[in-house]
C-alpha cells in the first residue's frame, strides 16, 4: 500500500475521502486493488465544491486519470469540512437564531458552567484560575425569551405551559427576523410535551406571517440530560450546521456533474459517516482525529486484533484512544470551540505534545519544558524556509542524526542540521550547561517519558493492563517515538503500519455508513422484583425507547432511499447500580428487553462489563440497576479500502532497501546506524536497531536493542530485545 505515481490508466478509483481543512483540502483516493494516492488543493470557503474538485483532480493526476472518466467508478465518497466548526470558533454565522427557554433559565448560555471556563485549555491553564474565562455565548441575550412552564426531573408537569408566553416570544423573535427558533425546556428529554406544543403554536404564527423560520426542539435533536449542553448543541445545529447544508449540496452536485453515481457522506463524531441530508448535522463538526481510530478498528477486525490502544503523534498533539472487543468508547459530552456539547464522540485523550512542540528552558526553575504551543507543520528552526525561531522536538531529531536533512518529507522541505545544532546550543544546551546532543537527547527523553506516562494512565485508568492490548502507532511523528513511549509498558505487541502518515485518511475511508441516536432515560430495575415483572415494566420501557430511536434511524436512512431491511441495528445502554454516579457503556446482546430471558441476558452482559472494569468484588447487584441512557446504532455496509496482503519472503531485506548508513546519537553514544527505505522492505523482512527506516512521510526509528519485522499487511511489529 504505497503511493504510486505510475501512469496507469487501467486503474479504477473506488474510495474517495476528502478532508477540507482551514487552508488545504486533502484527498485520499484508493483504487480497486487497495493502492492509494493523495491530492491537495487550496480550500475554497465561498464554494467548497471547487476545492473538492481541484483536490480530487490533483490526486487523479498522479494516476493520469481524468475526473469525468473516474468519478463514475467511485463506490464510496466521504467528505469532511471545517466550515461548521469555524462558525463556532469565530462565533460568526450567516443565520439569525432565537431561543425560547424555560422562564428563569434565559441566562443559561451566558452562565455556562464552571468546566466551560477552562475546557479546551492547556493543562497549566486549566489549573490556574486566572486563566479561566467563560467563552462568548453563541446567541445574544436579547435573542432569548423565557416561557413559563416546568417539567421535573422525572417528567412530571409542575407548571403548565403558558401558551401566551410562547406566542409573545415567537412574535418577538420573528420581528427580529430569525431564521431558526431553538426551543429548550428543562427536562424535556423526560417529557417533550411542552416543547412539542410550543412548536405547534410557533408554526401557526410562522404560517400566519408567511415566514420561513424553522423551529428546532432540543427534545427532537438531543434528548439527553444537562440543559447547557443540550442548549449549546441544539443552537450549534441551527447556528453552525444548518448553514453548511448548501455547501454540502454543492459538493454532491459536483460529484453528480462529473458522472459520479454515489451519495456523498460526511464523517460524524460517533465514528460513522452520515448522509448530507441527515437531520442532525452538528455531529459532523469533528474536532478530533478520530479517523485513525476508525482505521485501527477496521484493521483490527480484518486481522483479528480485538483490543488495541491507538496512538497518534502529529506536530501539535498526542492522541490516544482505546478499542475493546472491536469497539471504541464514546464521550457523550465532548468540547468543541470551547463549548460543552451533548454529542456522541469517539473518545480520545489528547495531550498537547508533538514533534513540533516548542522546547524552552523555564527561567524560574531551569528545567526543560515542552509546549504547549508548537510550530505545527512549520517543523522547527532547522526548516530554514519557515520563520520558526524556537527549537522544536524535530530539531533535536535532526541534530541527533535520526532524521536525514536531505530526506525530510521525501526531500520536500529543506532542513539545515547546522542551524538545528546552533539553536539548540544557544536556547537549550548552554542555559542548562549541557552538550548540544546531550540536550537534544534530554528533550526527546522528556517527551517520551511524558507520552509513556500519559499512555499508561489512559490504559490503567480505564481498568486495563497494557498486556491485554496491541499498541498501534501512527501519525506523521508516531514511529519516530514509538520505541521510546512504549518502552517497558508491556504491551502485547507494538504495531507500526508502513502507511502511518496516511493512516487517519485511510480510516476516514474505512468508516461505516452509520447513524447513532441516544436518549437519556431513568429506568430503574429494582432488586426485589421478579424478572417477569421487570421485563413487563422496565424492560418494556427500554424496548419502547430503543424502538423510537430505531425509527429515527430508519427515517434518516430513508432520506437516502435506504430501506429498513438494509440496515444492521445495534443496541446499547448506559447502566449503573442504583444510586451510583457513573454509568458504564454496554452493547446489548438483545434487540428487545421486554421478555424475562432477554432482560436477563442484558443484565448479565452488564455484570460482565462491570466485573471487567471494576473487579468482581465491586459488583453490587443487590442494589438493583438503573438504565441512564439508551442508544441505537444503524449501519449500512459500504465499500471499504483494502488492506494490503502480500506473501512473506525471507527475513533478509532486498538490496534496494539499503541506503547508506550514517552516525546517529543513541543514549550518549554515536553509533553507526543502518538506514533503510521503508517502502522497499518486503513482508517477512527483519531489521534490528540501531536503524532508521525512512519513508515518504514517515520516519520509523529503531533504537539499539530493538527489532522489527514486516508482516503480510505491511505492518511492522516492533520488539524490545534488550
Amino acid at each position, binding site marked *: 500500500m504505497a503511493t504510486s505515481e505510475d501512469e496507469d490508466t487501467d486503474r479504477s478509483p473506488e474510495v474517495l475521502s476528502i478532508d477540507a481543512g482551514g487552508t488545504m483540502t486533502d484527498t485520499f483516493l484508493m483504487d480497486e486493488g487497495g493502492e492509494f494516492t493523495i491530492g491537495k488543493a487550496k480550500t475554497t470557503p465561498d464554494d467548497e465544491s471547487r476545492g473538492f474538485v481541484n483536490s480530487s483532480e490533483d490526486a487523479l493526476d498522479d494516476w493520469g486519470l481524468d475526473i469525468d472518466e473516474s468519478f463514475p467508478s467511485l463506490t464510496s465518497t466521504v467528505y469532511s469540512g471545517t466550515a461548521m466548526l469555524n462558525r463556532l470558533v469565530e462565533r460568526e454565522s450567516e443565520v439569525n437564531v432565537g431561543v425560547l427557554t424555560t422562564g428563569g433559565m434565559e441566562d443559561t448560555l451566558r452562565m455556562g458552567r464552571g468546566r466551560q471556563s477552562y475546557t479546551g485549555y492547556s493543562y497549566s491553564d486549566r489549573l490556574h484560575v486566572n486563566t479561566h474565562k467563560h467563552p462568548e455565548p453563541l446567541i445574544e441575550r436579547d435573542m432569548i425569551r423565557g416561557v413559563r412552564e416546568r417539567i421535573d426531573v422525572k417528567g412530571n408537569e409542575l407548571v403548565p405551559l403558558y401558551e401566551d408566553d410562547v406566542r409573545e416570544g415567537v412574535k418577538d423573535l420573528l420581528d427580529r427576523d430569525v431564521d431558526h427558533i431553538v426551543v429548550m425546556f428543562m427536562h424535556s428529554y423526560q417529557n417533550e410535551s411542552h416543547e412539542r406544543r410550543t412548536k405547534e403554536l410557533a408554526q401557526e404564527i410562522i404560517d400566519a406571517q408567511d415566514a420561513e423560520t424553522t423551529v428546532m426542539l432540543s427534545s427532537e435533536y438531543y434528548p439527553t440530560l444537562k440543559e447547557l449542553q443540550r442548549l449549546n448543541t441544539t443552537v450549534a445545529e441551527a447556528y453552525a450546521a444548518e448553514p453548511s447544508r448548501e455547501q454540502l449540496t454543492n459538493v454532491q452536485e459536483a460529484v453528480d456533474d462529473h458522472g459520479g453515481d454515489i451519495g456523498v457522506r460526511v464523517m460524524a463524531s460517533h465514528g460513522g459517516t452520515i448522509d448530507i441530508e441527515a437531520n442532525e448535522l452538528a455531529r459532523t463538526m469533528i474536532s478530533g482525529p478520530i479517523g485513525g481510530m476508525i482505521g485501527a478498528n477496521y484493521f483490527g477486525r480484518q486481522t483479528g486484533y480485538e483490543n488495541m490502544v491507538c496512538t497518534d503523534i502529529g506536530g501539535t498533539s498526542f492522541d490516544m484512544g482505546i478499542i475493546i472487543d472491536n469497539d471504541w468508547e464514546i464521550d457523550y459530552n465532548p468540547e468543541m470551540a470551547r463549548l460543552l456539547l451533548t454529542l456522541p464522540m469517539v473518545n480520545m485523550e489528547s495531550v498537547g505534545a508533538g514533534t513540533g512542540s516548542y522546547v*524552552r528552558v523555564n527561567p*524560574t526553575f531551569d528545567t526543560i519544558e515542552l509546549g504547549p504551543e508548537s510550530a505545527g507543520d512549520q517543523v522547527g528552526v532547522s526548516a530554514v524556509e519557515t520563520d520558526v525561531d524556537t527549537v522544536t522536538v524535530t530539531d533535536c531529531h535532526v541534530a541527533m542524526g535520526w532524521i536525514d536533512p536531505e530526506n525530510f518529507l521525501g526531500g520536500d522541505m529543506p532542513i539545515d542540521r547546522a542551524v538545528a545544532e546552533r539553536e539548540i546550543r544557544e536556547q537549550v544546551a548552554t542555559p542548562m550547561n549541557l552538550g548540544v546532543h546531550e540536550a537534544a537527547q534530554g528533550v526527546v527523553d522528556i517527551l517520551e517519558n511524558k507520552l509513556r506516562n500519559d499512555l499508561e494512565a489512559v490504559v490503567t485508568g480505564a481498568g486495563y493492563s497494557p498486556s491485554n492490548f496491541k499498541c498501534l502507532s501512527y501519525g506523521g511523528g508516531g514511529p519516530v517515538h514509538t520505541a521510546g513511549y512504549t518502552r517497558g509498558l508491556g504491551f502485547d505487541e507494538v504495531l507500526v503500519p508502513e502507511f502511518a502518515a496516511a493512516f487517519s485518511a485511510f480510516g476516514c475511508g474505512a468508516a461505516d455508513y452509520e447513524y447513532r441516536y441516544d436518549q437519556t432515560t431513568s429506568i430503574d430495575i429494582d432488586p426485589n422484583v421478579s424478572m417477569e415483572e421487570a421485563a413487563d415494566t422496565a424492560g418494556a420501557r427500554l424496548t419502547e425507547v430503543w424502538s423510537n430511536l430505531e425509527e429515527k434511524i430508519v427515517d434518516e436512512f430513508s432520506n437516502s432511499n435506504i430501506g429498513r431491511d438494509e440496515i444492521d441495528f445495534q443496541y446499547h445502554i448506559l447502566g449503573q447500580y442504583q444510586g451510583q454516579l457513573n454509568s458504564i457503556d454496554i452493547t446489548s446482546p438483545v434487540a428487545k428487553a421486554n421478555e424475562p430471558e432477554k432482560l436477563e441476558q442484558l443484565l448479565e452482559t452488564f455484570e460482565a462489563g462491570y466485573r471487567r472494569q471494576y473487579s468482581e468484588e465491586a459488583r453490587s447487584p443487590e442494589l438493583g440497576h438503573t438504565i441512564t441512557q439508551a442508544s441505537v446504532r444503524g449501519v449500512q455496509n459500504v465499500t471499504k479500502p483494502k488492506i494490503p496482503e502480500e506473501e512473506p519472503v525471507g527475513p533478509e531485506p532486498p538490496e534496494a532497501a539499503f541506503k547508506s548508513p550514517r552516525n546517529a546519537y543513541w543514549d550518549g553514544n554515536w553509533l553507526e546506524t543502518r538506514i533503510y527505505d521503508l517502502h522497499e522492505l518486503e513482508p517477512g523482512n527483519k531489521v534490528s536497531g540501531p536503524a532508521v527506516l525512512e519513508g515518504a512521510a514517515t520516519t520509523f526509528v529503531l533504537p539499539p536493542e530493538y527489532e522489527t519485522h514486516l508482516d503480510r499487511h505491511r505492518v511492522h511489529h516492533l520488539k524490545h530485545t534488550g
Partner: protein
Amino acid sequence: MPDTYPREIIEDLVDDSLEWDQLHDMMSKFKDTDRFQQVREVLQERVDWEDPIIIPYAEHLYIVAKSADRWVIKCDCGHEFCEHDQNWKREALINVRDSTEAYREIYPEGMHPHPDYMELREFFCPGCKTLLEVENMMPGYPLVHTFEPDIETFYDEWIDEPIPTPESA
C-alpha cells in the same frame, strides 16, 4: 517567549485594554524578565510628581522614595499618607456604613449584611477624595493592615536591581 514586550503592550496591560486572547497568552507564557520595571516606568510617567515609585501599592497608591532611606505611601494626586510600613488607612477619610439606612443607600433591600454583624468602611484620599478601598469587617475590629511589602528582599533577591532613590531617578 519574548524576554520583553513592546512598551505599547505593557501600557495596554496597565490600562486593562488588551484583548482576552493576548492577555491569556501573556499569562500562560513564562513571565517577561523586565515586566516589573516596564510597568513601573509606565506608572511613573503617568503621575505628576517626581518622587521615584518603588512599587505600586494598591490602586492609585504607590510607595515612593523621599530619600535613600525614607519611603512613603503616596496617592497619584500627590497626597502623602505615611511611612511605607504604617497603615495608610489611619490617615484616610473614612465613611462607615453601620446602619440599615446607610447600607440601603448602595444595596437593594435585603441584599446587605446585618449592621450588627458587619460594617462597611470606605476609605477616601484626603487630597483628591477618590475612593481608594472598601473593607467589610465586624464592628470594633481594628483597621486591617492589608499589605506590608518587604522591599529590600524584593529588590535584592527577586529582581536583583538597586532600590530607586531620588538621586538615581
